[in-house]
């Protein structure tokens, strides 16, 4: 069940520190990204006949009106917020594979004007199921995930030094990345001195909140062969829900063996089955890093190390640019910017084209993960080889 579709164009706005993209609207940001992606693919806007989204998406009629997009035969949205992000690539591949559209633009954007993603649990206290989070004082996803992280530390002896290493590696990568928001390298002492926001998570464990938009054009492999850039094949993308992870940090009632993970085990299993690829075949991994400990837990879920071994694996230096599994060479959500996983897809495309800022030499296969959050969860493998 391999896809026959490729990413052929990439477009992005600058990454703006939260709230600073005003007076542009989120649609203006999206418009810029779509136009840039279409140009990058060497296409005309009139070649675009499909849109794909996640997280509820954005009103296609507004995009059509603003940029003058004339005809769509496909506009769909996958479930899941950042969790479902990589599933959007599967949706776009389905769209072109099935002939429903020829050239589909995948769109993702965030704008923290008048609201903040980091306080997304605030509304939860207004529901009968969510009221206990409000009574407890859990106002954001990071505060609730801190409960999972502490249990992982308790069960496996995971150390804060490992979380610090994830932040340090991210900052080193971002230091050379033009447009990244946090580019100054930090030491372990800096990390340990960072104030606790949700013990055991300190300020540096929390990702950025960023404004911006990104867009990717997906076409069939056949058409991709004639486009300006080498195609980046969507080898496979999995979009999976399992009840025991379920509503993730909104629920907190997972079995012990799931509570101490990032909830991605079932996605990894399906993704590897679909593609015939295993963790040993991944050359570079874009791991959704909204909170640094969740990187370590996803590395376990995706089989780069065993359950509970994420701490020592990370502390060995494995995830650095010169390590055995370089992760987030663009700096990721912790240092470059956070646009709900979209920046990870862009980096995977640049790595597969061989044009990345911190290019991993000879990289043939990239993993992109959706965020640990309520199901559906997702992941994708992109490659410059079919």
């Amino acid at each position: 069940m391999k896809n026959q579709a490729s990413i052929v164009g990439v477009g992005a706005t600058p990454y703006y520190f939260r709230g600073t993209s005003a007076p542009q609207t989120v649609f203006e940001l999206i418009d810029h990204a779509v136009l840039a992606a279409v140009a990058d693919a060497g296409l005309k806007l009139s070649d675009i006949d499909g849109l794909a989204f996640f997280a509820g998406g954005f009103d296609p009629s507004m995009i059509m009106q603003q940029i003058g997009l004339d005809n769509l035969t496909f506009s769909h949205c996958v479930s899941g917020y950042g969790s479902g992000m990589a599933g959007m690539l599967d949706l776009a591949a389905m769209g072109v594979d099935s002939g429903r559209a020829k050239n589909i633009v995948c769109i993702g954007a965030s704008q923290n004007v008048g609201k903040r993603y980091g306080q997304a649990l605030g509304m939860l206290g207004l529901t009968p199921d969510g009221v206990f989070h409000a009574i407890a004082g859990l106002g954001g996803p990071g505060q609730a995930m801190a409960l999972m992280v502490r249990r992982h530390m308790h069960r496996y002896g995971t150390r804060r030094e490992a979380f610090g290493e994830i932040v340090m590696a991210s900052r080193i990568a971002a230091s050379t990345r033009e447009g990244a928001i946090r580019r100054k390298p930090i030491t372990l002492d800096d990390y340990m001195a960072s104030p606790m926001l949700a013990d055991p998570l300190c300020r540096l464990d929390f990702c950025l909140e960023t404004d911006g938009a990104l867009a990717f054009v997906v076409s069939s492999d056949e058409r991709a062969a004639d486009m300006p850039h080498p195609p980046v094949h969507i080898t496979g993308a999995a979009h999976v829900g399992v009840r025991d992870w379920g509503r993730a940090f909104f629920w907190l009632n997972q079995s012990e063996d799931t509570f101490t993970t990032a909830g991605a085990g079932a996605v990894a299993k399906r993704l590897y089955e679909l593609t015939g690829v295993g963790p040993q075949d991944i050359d570079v991994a874009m791991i959704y890093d909204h909170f640094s400990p969740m990187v370590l837990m996803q590395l376990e879920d995706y089989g780069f190390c065993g359950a509970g071994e994420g701490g020592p694996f990370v502390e060995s230096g494995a995830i650095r640019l010169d390590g055995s599994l370089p992760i987030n060479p663009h700096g990721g959500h912790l240092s470059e910017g956070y646009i709900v996983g979209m920046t990870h897809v862009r980096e995977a495309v640049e790595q597969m084209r061989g044009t990345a800022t911190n290019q991993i030499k000879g990289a043939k296969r990239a993993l992109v993960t959706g965020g640990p959050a309520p199901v559906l969860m997702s992941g994708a493998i992109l490659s410059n080889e079919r």
Partner: protein
Amino acid sequence: MSTRSITPDLSAFEVPMDVWSEPYWHTAAEHRLVLPRCGACNTFRWPAGPFCPECRSQEVEWVAPGQGRIYSFTILPVAGPDKDAPPQVRIPALVTFEGAPGVRLVSALIDAAPEEVKIDALVEMDWLPAANATVPVFRLQNPPPV
């Protein structure tokens, strides 16, 4: 002396309820904790909802869950009452109960010295007034059992 975790002021907080959670709040008004157990297959579920996800029965029994124990917790800095006041902490704790396998309740752990809060520490219930309900919070069991 260290700062002890705050007791949140919930007096203006409106607890949202639905037909499935109301029995919980009726009992909470009497300062008693109960959790929902399936009337058909005896599986606990949380939060309360219309079906048992194991057997799809809609029968519910509300059961006192017994001794609580900290499964995990976090410590959040919170602003003091004024600018010069020392920083305070709020401690959300996730608690399991001896008599309710498979479910956990999250709430505030009040009046606890942060350095004394540990996974597996035993807790007892306390109750705070909200606008339309009485809400459960936790305290470290004191004195600790010998």
